[in-house]
């Protein structure tokens, strides 16, 4: 199923071939690197004092959601790398396609212009999730308050071990070059 309810902006015609090839091509398909477990759910619910009984009362969870689930808004949490892991070197980045685009388009700065999440099948303890990143659009060069840059949109699609759609995060980024750069 599609998370989109409208077409994103049309693509610029002056893009390097590497950037053009990225559009609508699923990239960086990766499994999560740690198990889904309730401890993370309790930490999140405690941090925002979320008393929803589907996260705290197993009987309610069984009756309403068919067993324990995680809050839908935790979707991105399952793909944030550990701060450190054995053998890891250098900074560990989520959303690698975004950093690829910054490099290919030679736009050294970037900010998140907007983000939207669409939620499908609930995430349950023991699930094994996979994400993939899909560049949906790259806009023309334009002058912004921050500098000259382009807007681009990247979908991060998540599925579970049954191949079911768990959700999509839609990031719109502004990559830019400051006037003095």
């Amino acid at each position, binding site marked *: 199923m599609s998370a989109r309810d409208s077409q994103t902006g049309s693509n610029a015609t002056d893009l390097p071939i590497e950037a053009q090839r990225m559009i609508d091509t699923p990239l960086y398909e990766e499994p999560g690197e740690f198990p889904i477990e309730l401890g993370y759910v309790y930490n999140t619910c*405690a941090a925002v*004092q*979320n008393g929803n009984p589907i996260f705290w009362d197993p009987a309610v969870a069984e009756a*309403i959601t068919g067993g324990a689930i995680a809050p*839908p808004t*935790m979707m*991105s949490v399952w793909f944030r790398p550990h701060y450190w892991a054995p053998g890891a070197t250098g900074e560990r980045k989520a959303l690698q396609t975004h950093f690829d685009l910054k490099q290919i388009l030679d736009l050294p700065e970037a900010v998140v212009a907007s983000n*939207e999440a669409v*939620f499908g099948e609930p995430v349950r303890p023991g699930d094994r999730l996979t994400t993939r990143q899909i560049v949906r659009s790259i806009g023309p060069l334009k002058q912004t308050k921050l500098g000259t840059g382009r807007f681009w949109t990247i979908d991060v699609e998540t599925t579970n071990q049954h191949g079911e759609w768990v959700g999509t995060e839609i990031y719109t980024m502004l990559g830019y070059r400051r006037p003095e750069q």
Partner: protein
Amino acid sequence: MSATDVSGITAADIAEGQELPALRHPVSATTIVLGALASRDWRPMHHDKDFAVERNGVKNIFINTPNNAAWFERYITDWTGPKGRLGRLRFEMKKSVFPGDEMCFSGVVRKLARDSAGCDWADLELTISVDGEVRTTGRARVAIPADPADNPWTRKGERWLP
């Protein structure tokens, strides 16, 4: 443990233009650090005041994006009850929320509609303000039970169209 309250609203209980009950929450440094670490966001501007001031040019550490999402989810389901199922959430953090701020959540039902699969949806406009200044605005789409026997969480595949 006492019996858990699982009551909540149904589509018959709400109307377009209806306001959600306000929620106020005082923010401390602990609030921000708890939220950042719970969302596995280790970036220093969410736990290290010196870094936030010197590198980000702001007055203190500030709430991170995924924790802001978790706050909105809590605000929405406080209103719907446990059968409310979030389908879509979008927001923009126009200004940061810092220790010492009191967040005031408000929301209004902009649209009510039943989709082709028979699911009732409420489209919400959401705001987090501090001392009357808007810090975050958002929009959400949440499925609401049609009646006490309905449960949006049972929907899958073609019956779930967020």
